[in-house]
């Protein structure tokens, strides 16, 4: 097989990727419900493509089906990352339709439907873990970081040797404590941001390019 045929079949770029790292990656935005995953996805898309990912709401489990956009290129000056971005439904260990009624004023039928779709969304999020190259794990920096969902996602990705970047969101809130997140998960990069206002997203993009562009050997789950 000649050099030309290797190049033509796209193997050359894959060889380059193997040597220098990944420059096209499938990145999942993960986290518990209501931490700002879709707000962040919308922010990334709006800034790099002018598009948006989906609707946002104060009511948990607004995103109940995974959504994705392909070939989003983000630059940090010298280098760049082309990614397929997957916005996943929030992962939870419990879903009570009565919470939607009592706390958010939805009627019984809407609440039951939302809860049913939310359970399906959690399953879909977990299944997407099999098919991604890296995760932006969004956490609410006003809340306790040691939730079982955070710990489970991190443990699962570490077992697969997949890169994790923690976006400590809602930094614009008075009670935000990104330092708590940094000390809770010192083994992973933590970038304090506000997906709502755009605060420090430049730092997030730079870290994404560096962190997700690194060469890694993915393990099967």
């Amino acid at each position: 097989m000649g050099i030309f045929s290797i190049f033509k079949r796209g193997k050359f770029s894959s060889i380059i990727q193997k040597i220098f790292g990944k420059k096209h990656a499938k990145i999942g935005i993960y986290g518990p419900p209501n931490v700002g995953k879709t707000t962040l996805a919308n922010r990334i898309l709006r800034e790099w493509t002018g598009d948006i990912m989906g609707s946002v709401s104060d009511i948990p489990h607004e995103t109940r089906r995974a959504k994705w956009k392909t070939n989003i290129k983000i630059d940090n000056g010298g280098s760049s990352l082309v990614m397929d971005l997957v916005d996943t439904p929030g992962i939870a260990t419990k879903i009570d339709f009565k919470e939607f009624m009592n706390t958010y004023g939805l009627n019984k039928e809407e609440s039951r439907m939302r809860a049913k779709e939310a359970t399906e969304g959690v399953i879909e999020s977990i299944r997407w873990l099999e098919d991604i190259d890296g995760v932006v794990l969004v956490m609410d920096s006003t809340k306790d970081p040691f939730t079982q969902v955070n710990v489970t996602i991190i443990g699962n990705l570490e077992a697969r040797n997949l890169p994790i970047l923690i976006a400590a969101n809602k930094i614009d809130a008075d009670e935000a404590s990104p330092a708590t997140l940094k000390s809770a998960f010192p083994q992973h990069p933590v970038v304090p941001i506000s997906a709502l206002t755009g605060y420090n997203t430049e730092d997030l993009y730079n870290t994404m390019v560096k962190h997700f562009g690194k060469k890694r050997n993915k393990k099967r789950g």
Partner: protein
Amino acid sequence: MAKKEKGISFNLISRQKLNDLSSSEKLKYILKEVRQGRILVLEHGLTPTEQTSLIENTMKEIDHDTFIGIEMGGYGEEKTGFFQRVFGVIKKPRMTVIGPAHLLKMIHKDNDKIETTIIPGRGVN
């Protein structure tokens, strides 16, 4: 007629018992116990992959009238030494508490303490 009083079962499951079960048997056992209203403390916790599967299986079992899911909290995995890492010794998960979400509520968790409260008399019905 006197109201029937029903206590909350709180079961401590030994490492030996858990080691004797395969992953799928373990998850099936845990969900069955929790669905029956029992709170379990596992001496030897679940691996991250097992935890993810437990969440997935829990979602399939939720029926909104009798079971709204689980509450789960555990310490991270035991640290392995340099030689253990070199020889591929797998890190072992530590103690974990799991219960039905309508009975058990996680209050706070950090590296040293898992604080929970049991909510007697609170059902999903």
